[in-house]
Structures are given as C-alpha cells and as structure tokens.
C-alpha cells in the first residue's frame, strides 16, 4: 500500500518537473511586461492580461505564419502516409529483383545527417526555381525512409494467409493494400501521420534556408525571428511560444488513442 503511494508520489514529482516549463510559459504569457521582467517565483500573474494574445498577433504576422505552417504540414503528412504505405507494402510483401538492395539504400539515407544534404538540397531546389515557394517547403519532405521502415515492419507482422485468401477471391495487391492491409495497420499509419505532422510543423532549419520573405515564413522561423529581435518582451515571447505549441498539443490529444497502439505494433521487437 505504502509502496504504491511512494510510486505515485515519485511519478507526480517527475510530472511536475516535466510540466513546470509549460506552466511558467502560460503564467508569464499573461503577465504585464513589468511583472514578467521582475525576478520572482510567482508562477501566475496577479492579473491575467488576456489582451497579450492580441498584442502578440499584432507584433508579428503570426496569422500568415500559421496559414503557411498548416498548409505545408497538411500536404506533407498526407504524402508521407501515402508514400510510406506504398513503399512499406512493396518492401514487405512483394518479391522483385533488387528488393534487398533498394531497401538497404532506403535505410542508409536515415543515417545521413540533415546538414550534409542541406547545401546541395538548397542548390537543387534553387535550380528548380523553387526558392521561396511552397514547393521548396513541401516536395523534399514528401517521403521519409524511417517511416517506410516502420510501416514495412507493420506489414511484415500481418499473417500472409490474409493475402492468400484475398488472392484466391481474385483480389490484386493494390486492392488488398487499400481495403485490407491498410486498415489493419491503421494505428501505425496514424502514428506515422502524427510524427510527420510534428516533424513538418516543428522544422526550423530547412524553412529558414529556403524562404526569404514574410509571406512564405512558417511559425518556427517566425518565432525564431521574433525571439531574436532586439528588445522583445518576455511576456509576448512566452505568449508566442504558447500559440506555437497549442496546435500540436491539440493534435496529440486527438491522435493519442491510435498513437500508443501504433507503437506497440511497430514490430520494435526486432
């Protein structure tokens, strides 16, 4: 009995350390400038300054940033789920010459640091005439080797009897993938989708490099520019951070149910 209380106490301590920065962010976001800049341990403002939200949106074009981020993240997520489902299925279920070699090449690209390909990628995108366009922000990210690997693992875990049965009934690979295998690995597809969205929405360096105008900026770049600006007020900075974080938290709560299932079924056991 006591042991259980100790366990909960321990977990609560951990949880408060984990969430303290968020609490501080929200508290500071709605303080007055003077209160936010005064050294104190006061977590919450003496009076909540809700108008800070409005001021933040006026201080920088966060509306445009959000529109860009959401559009880019939405297209990237959809494409990543589709491409990793297709490629994952091909690597797991189809037999063709060069399958092993192709898969090894795909896996090898996971190990290449992003910084290595940053400049050449920038040159390629520039050559294509994509500088400062949505295409530059979206196209290079429409597939991901690691997610192909995850989805492949999930497809490998399906009994091959399913496919044999479907084949006898006259079902080809594509129909099997869309109507049977795809829905069976839905949790992992949702997980991949969630990670793809987070990866796109939270990315910083690439958008920083390939966009140059406010019109094309995404939220992370916007926040970096905002926080690097001279004399930015603490409270508005925290308010901007809260605004940037909010959508991902909402999305996470929506996708949660599938997400934990997805990780159990990823075949991470080997």
């Amino acid at each position, binding site marked *: 009995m006591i042991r259980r209380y100790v366990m*909960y106490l321990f*977990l609560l301590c*951990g*949880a408060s350390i*984990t969430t303290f920065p*968020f609490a*501080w962010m929200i508290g500071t976001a709605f303080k007055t400038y003077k209160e936010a800049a005064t*050294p*104190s*341990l006061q977590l919450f403002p003496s009076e909540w300054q809700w108008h800070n939200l409005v001021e933040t949106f006026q201080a920088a074009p966060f509306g445009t940033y959000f529109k860009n981020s959401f559009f880019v993240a939405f297209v990237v997520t959809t494409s990543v789920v589709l*491409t990793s489902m*297709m*490629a994952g*299925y091909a690597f797991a279920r*189809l*037999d*063709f*010459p060069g399958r092993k070699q*192709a898969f090894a090449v*795909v896996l090898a*690209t996971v*190990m*290449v*640091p*992003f*910084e*290595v*390909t940053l*400049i*050449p*990628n920038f040159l390629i995108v520039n050559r294509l005439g994509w500088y400062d366009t949505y295409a530059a922000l979206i*196209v290079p990210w*429409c*597939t991901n080797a690691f997610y*192909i690997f995850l989805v492949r693992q999930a497809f490998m875990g399906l009994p091959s009897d399913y496919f044999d049965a479907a084949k006898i009934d006259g079902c*080809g*690979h*594509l129909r099997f*993938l869309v*109507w049977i295998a795809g829905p069976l690995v839905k949790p992992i597809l949702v997980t991949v989708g969630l990670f793809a969205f987070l990866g796109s*929405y*939270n990315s*910083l360096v690439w958008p920083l490099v390939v966009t140059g105008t406010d019109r094309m900026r995404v939220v*992370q770049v916007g*926040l970096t520019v905002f*926080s690097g600006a001279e004399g930015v007020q*603490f409270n508005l900075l*925290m308010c*901007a*951070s*809260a605004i*940037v*974080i909010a959508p*991902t*938290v909402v999305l*996470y709560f929506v996708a949660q149910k599938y997400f*934990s299932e997805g*990780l159990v079924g990823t075949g*991470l056991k*080997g």
Partner: protein
Amino acid sequence: MPNLMESRALGWINRIPAVVDTVLAVCDDLLERMGGNRLRDLPTAVLLLLPSLGLLGVFGLLPLLLAVYLSLFTGKGVNMQFAGLANYTRALSSEEFWSSLLNTFYYALGTIVGAFLISFVIASVLFRLARGRGFFRTVYFLPYITSVVAAATIWRVLLHPYAGPVNVLLTYVGVSPENLPRWLLEPKGVLHLLTNGAFPENWGPSLALCCVILFDIWHSSGFMIVILLAGLTAIPRELEEAAVIDGAGWYARNRYVIVPLISPTIFFLLIMSVIKAFQAFNSFYALTGDGRGPYDSTQNMTVYIFTNLYVYQRLGYGAAVAVLLAVAIVILTLVQWRYVGRKVHYE
C-alpha cells in the same frame, strides 16, 4: 465519409485499385511468360516504389553525392577550385574540428545515458501501475511534441541569469548573487565549477553544454518512456512473477528478466538515439542563439558545419566536415549493430 465514398459522384474512386490491379495483372502475365516468377511482382513494385525512391533519390542520394563532390573544392562561389582532399586534411588537423567532435561525444553520452536511465525507471514504475498509466504517459510525452524552438525559448527564460526563476530560487535558498550560475552563458567546465577549481576551466563539458544536454533529456525522455513502456507491456507477466517466487530482488529481476526481454527495444532506442545525438542541431541553435554558445563551448559537429557553410561561406570545407560526420555515424551504427546487436535477445 463512407456514404460520400459510396455515392454515385465519387464511387468511381473506389474502383481505381481494382482497375489498376487489372492492368497490373496483364503486365504480370506478360512478364511471367518472359522471365519467370521473380519478375511477376515487378510492375506493382515499380508503381508503389516510384514516388518514394524518386524523392529519396533526388533529395537524399543526389545531394549526398553533390556534398562529396563539393568537399573536393575550396574557395567561394564562382571562384571554387579543385583541391583534392585538402579540405579533409585541413579538417582533421584543425583544433576546432576535434573540440566540436568532443562536444558531440559529451552531448551524445549525456543525453543517451541520462534520458535512458530516467526513462527506464519511469517506464518500469508506470508499467506496474494499475491506474493512471495513460495520464502519466501523456504528461511525460508533452515535451516531445512541442517544437524545440518554442521549448528552448521557455528554457532561455527559465535559465535567465537575472530574471529566471531558477536563479531566483537559488537566491532564496541562500546562494549569494556573485555565485549564481550563468547557465547557458557559462563557458567554464562543470567539473571546474563543481570542484571549486580543482579541474582546469576548459576541462570536460561546459556548463552551457550541460544545460543543452539537460534540455534534451527533458525534451526526448517522453519518447523513450513510451517506447520502453510498449516493450514492457509485451512481456508476459508470468515471467516476472516466476522470478519473484524464485526470490529474485529488484536488481536481479531487472538485470536477468526484464532487460533481456526488452533488449530488442533497448537496442532500437540505442541505435536511434546515437544517430539523433550526432545529428542534433535545433536545440543548440535555439538555446544559444547561434549554436556555438559562449566561447564556442557548445559548438558540436553539426553547428560547426552550419557555421562554416553560413557564416564563413566555406562550402567545400563545410561539406568535407559533413561527409566526415556522416562516415562517423555510419561506422558507429555498424559497430553497434555488430557488437551490441549480438547481445540482443530475440525470442
């Protein structure tokens, strides 16, 4: 949604897979007559793999080759000249290169060991809970889903030397103002600071680098907890109960029953975290403003590459260092695969 898909207007979409399958079946048939069994799936495979392999080729492999090519040149812009391996020898004999590599090692060691120990303890406690597991898992996962930029912005305020709550707290417990740590602005080594100067100032990781490490432990532990928990849940309960009946204590149960059983999960996490630690950039950049930190004391390999490319515009040199880093990552991964992978226990 289903109703819409079954309506007359959009119903044809449902038939696409079947139609394509029919076309593919004809191709299959032809290929089978020409070349036998292994070619049968080829048309389907080409169709399914083309988008991914095309994109990975253009934005993954081509840039890699270009990086290797660029690394053989020196100079800027149109004045680039072929220089052979000069960039590589320059990198390997540069002090900054090795100190960046050392910082990368400190960071990898600190984040992987730290995050793993914390996550393992929390996951094994969570695993034994009857109630509240979902709640805690959600809470612990929160930092992982927040953007590094936003989270780093918060931490910069928390660790602010004057107005940050951490130092305010330290003042309350009696630390005098001149002894307050400067956290992210402190280039001196932690060992030097902790031992009151028994170690030289430039020995070991700087306090600023340790702050980046702590930040990343905070930011990434949630992911490890969730994965470890998934691995633990897959262990049959009877095995641990049997160990308890045999009189195994806490350590023995973990060492001889639990760890071997979840070793595939641990191995996966290890491989992924090493790759991630060697590629870390965002947290350095967002926490210190330029990634380099005070007196370059947080500069790791990726920051060094970034600085060379963007601040000094040394494309060739930056590319050479990047290629060296990629080689280091590949070697490390292969070594782990060979020597650690062998100890992994598969059922």
